[in-house]
């Protein structure tokens, strides 16, 4: 637990030196640079792979809600 806390603090500390100024967000603001660009496609894929594989989620909640034979 202690190690995890130290690791998290280092990570957050390390992150604070990264990044851009608010006026440098021209590229990051583009639609194609969003982490999820196509919500319908993402939800569809999550459902397909949930139904056909033993793993699910990761990107978002594990999904589910189907009998999925």
């Amino acid at each position, binding site marked *: 637990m202690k190690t995890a806390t130290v690791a998290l603090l280092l*990570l*957050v500390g390390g*992150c*604070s030196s*990264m*990044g*851009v*100024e*608010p006026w*440098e*967000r*021209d*590229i*990051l603001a*583009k639609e*194609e*640079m969003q*982490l999820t*660009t*196509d*919500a*319908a*496609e993402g*939800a*569809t894929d999550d*459902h*397909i*792979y949930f139904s*056909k*594989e*033993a*793993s*699910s*989620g*990761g*990107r*978002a*909640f*594990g999904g*589910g*809600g*189907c*009998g999925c*034979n």
Partner: protein
Amino acid sequence: MDGHSAVVAVAATKDRSISAALATATCALLGNSIPAAVEAQEEPKWDFNTSLLYYGEDENRVQDLSLKAIIRRMFVDDRSLTVSLTLDSLTGATPSGAIRQDVPQTFTRPSGNAAYEVPVGVLPLDDTFKDTRVALTGNWQQPVGDTSLINVGISASKEYDYFHLGLNGRFAKDFNKRNTTFSAGISIAQDEFDSVGGVPIPFTSMLDVGDTSNRPEASRDKDVLDVVLGLTQVISRSLVVQANYSYSSESGYLNNPYKVLSIVDGTTGDTIARTNPGPLLGPSHEFVFESRPDDRVKHSLYTQAKVFLGGKVLDTSYRYMTDDWDIESHTLDVRYRWPLSDRLYVEPHLRWYSQTEADFYRLSLVDGAPLPAFASSDYRLGAFDAITAGLKFGWKTANQNDMSIRLEWYQQAGSIPGEQLIGNQASRDNYPDLNALIVQFSYRFKL
């Protein structure tokens, strides 16, 4: 006031009242005080994300035609309501879990009302699979202070034999000039399996047509808890990365009530023929219903990086998953969005997936041997690799709406652990490999 303005005014009042009611509900949930009413600062907007999907497996296995609409209504102050509706129409056949034989096999249908025959050497598929699924979600999102946002939602879905109801919430906070975002989400759900013909008792035999004595209960439940902790970090003007840890716990009825295992001879590996089939129509061989543990805990780590390379965007993600059923999986996903003009792009997609089998995965069970605590021959709990390869074309219409079409091939190839193959099984193709075609047309427009 003319008729048109009156309609607009009524609509605006209605919007504000919906917005206010949802804000009140959210704040009540969060235990916050209700914020002062805010006058409209700009015109509210609608965002419609719609798609039509065809998913089809070869050899007449599962076919799905799915219609989806994700509708987002944006209110003032970055508040929004998102509602999604999905309609699935499923038909086709699905592996029953029994193995191929050199003789014809007869099975009682899941309903218990009829039987079906599988020819010599053919993988037993249950071809009564037909379902319609309706899924609804609703999520309300709003900022909390200057650097945080909260999202609360509900999800429900219904199939002929399945009902799902879930609640979810997510909190995200920005740090470091909004370059770092920490998020935490929780989701709880209760699902109910209303198995056709009743829920069979695990490890009991498939019975004759009309005999439901091993199906005392009409339905069984399971509870699902998911927790996701995420960190998103902007690295540079053209690189953003994300890492998520997910915990998922399921408890209750985790079996598939339609899956069976073949009971085989310990030397030949052939399925045992029923000695006293009786006068009624029923199974020709010995099959028992599967038995899975009644809980499962999964952990997964998901990482994603998105980089802008002179107009093109490379999107890469990797997921590692492990659970207490002894399944481990690796998923690598790569997309490359390549603009061909200001309005047109092409996006190749490759996904590679590999999983190990669950510790209770069994191709078959040996007649006379002591039963293991759990066993399932569901191919999705076996060891397999899968590849998805696809291509998407996207374009902006003259009025700045987005359209896209994607074509993808999904292929699974599995293997049975060598020590599980008995006698004649070694010379048969035991794993139900899967080939599927995915075609999706999407249209996104804003009003």
